[in-house]
């Protein structure tokens, strides 16, 4: 039997499959569809200091092999989360990642400070510096290595929890933001969040999303994500967590070979709530086929052509 366990920084996960933020809520709704024993961790919906109702109107558009979303960080706020959802997440037989977002540096700092007393229930904090769906902050900070460095450095002072930084793909060179995160003290980077995109209704001549643009996710972005994971892994000393369009066990292996120590599954869960369980099974079968005894041994073994 393949050993699926992986270690990110100091934290051990029973397998490398993580439910991506925003595609699994806080775990409640998925309980009837998956056995949480089959996933390594769950990343909460992005939380902000104060509750947010998100964007108005239409928030989703289907695209070829993918979708655009413009939820705009609807969430109950960190306080409500800690009082109502964190215990539940911690009771699940899986790792707990808390995804944090904000408009300004202070938002991030205060939200993380608020979470710190509850550290015993949390395995890592994931800073979402890449949400394309809020007007200020977030992706703007995440696209600038300097702004990102500043923000992560400040947040770093607030917590002793493992700190993951989720990167935006909407940049010229992702290795620069990845390096900035590492310099600022991040314990891992997550690559990638969604690609900025648009869909138009030709009858009304309006964008389908009321936010005009949205974040593109799903299999369509996989080649871009894989290239960016490789780009990050080749310059970083800290682990990379791969994300973007993963829908099969073979995809998981490809991302790990490219340098990901673990992976996150987002849109696939929206298509099949039990996707992560199926994918874990496929990873096991494929690893056995390929004579891999411990999954972590393949991380970063990509043999580039010269």
């Amino acid at each position: 039997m393949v050993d699926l366990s992986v270690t990110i920084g100091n934290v051990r996960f029973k397998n490398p499959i993580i439910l991506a933020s925003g595609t699994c809520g806080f775990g409640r709704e998925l309980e009837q569809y998956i056995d949480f024993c089959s996933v390594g961790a769950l990343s909460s919906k992005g939380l902000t200091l104060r509750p947010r109702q998100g964007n108005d109107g239409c928030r989703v558009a289907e695209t070829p092999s993918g979708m655009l979303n413009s939820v705009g960080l609807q969430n109950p706020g960190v306080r409500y989360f800690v009082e109502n959802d964190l215990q539940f997440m911690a009771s699940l037989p899986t790792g707990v990642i808390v995804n944090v977002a904000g408009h300004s540096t202070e938002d991030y700092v205060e939200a993380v400070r608020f979470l710190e007393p509850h550290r015993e229930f949390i395995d890592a904090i994931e800073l979402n510096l890449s949400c394309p769906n809020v007007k200020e902050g977030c992706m703007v900070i995440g696209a600038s290595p300097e702004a990102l460095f500043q923000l992560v450095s400040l947040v770093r002072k607030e917590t002793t929890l493992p700190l993951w930084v989720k990167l935006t793909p909407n940049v010229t060179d992702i290795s620069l933001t990845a390096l900035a995160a590492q310099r600022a003290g991040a314990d891992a980077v997550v690559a990638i969040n969604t690609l900025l995109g648009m869909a138009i209704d030709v009858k009304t001549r309006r964008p389908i999303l009321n936010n005009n643009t949205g974040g593109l996710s799903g299999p369509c972005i996989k080649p871009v994500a894989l290239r960016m994971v490789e780009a990050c892994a080749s310059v970083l000393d800290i682990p990379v967590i791969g994300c973007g369009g993963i829908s099969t066990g073979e995809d998981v292996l490809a991302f790990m070979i490219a340098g990901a120590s673990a992976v996150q599954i987002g849109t696939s869960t929206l298509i099949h709530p039990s996707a992560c369980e199926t994918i874990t099974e496929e990873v096991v079968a494929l690893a056995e086929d390929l004579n891999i005894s411990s999954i972590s041994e393949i991380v970063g073994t990509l043999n580039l052509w010269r």
Partner: protein
Amino acid sequence: MAKEYTVTLKESIRVNPSTHFLSFYCPEIALNALPGQFVAISSNQFLKRPFGIAQVDKDKGTFSIGVRIVKDGTRYLATSPIGTEFEVMGPLGNGFSIEKDRPLLLVGGGTGVFPLRFLQSYAQEHSIPFYSVNGFRCVDDACFIDGERNSNCIVATDAGDFGVKGNVLDALEMIPFDMIRGSTVCTVGPEIMMKHVASWAESKGLTCYVSLEKRMACGIGVCLVCTCKTKSDKEPGYENKRCCKDGPVFLSAEVIW
């Protein structure tokens, strides 16, 4: 307890030039579905498509949906041969809350008649008195109109080529109020129609449920793409609720149109 199933298309009936009535074999959904709930069904597109459950046959183990052809996904469904397999999740959503001691006034527009059909069967089964009003653009757009010429059903068409000429509001005004006093109104159809039906019902002091249609992804409440605005005392004065999980049925008084 919704689950994912692989189901087989058992029957496909063309009910009008652009609408098909499809039945699938899936005993679990047939057994558990409640009126107002929906299924999400694979087509040959990326996302599953949501459809209100229109009928269940617990003995045969089938459930049915009415599908109006809009674009590629619905065209694929409507033209699939018997025997085609689909992935389905369901029953999803909350369904109508029905008090068995109150009569029902069912107001459907277009494909809204399909989910109401299930509610009507439920009312018949449980001997709940009901009155039904359905509106269509024209006779070619109408469904289930053959058996409907009885006293407690009115059909209206905008074109006037079948039943009453006018929309459902015109038809509602024709019903003597005594017949529907104390009824719970359940309406499914275009948003603008439901909004008018709701304000008509509110003006008459009737409780009204509306079934909202929003674009969806997960269908189970995890992704928050399908929200609708509802009234709330809390900041910022409204709450975005999930159509797929908190709905699709909402009290009209709750909805911010």
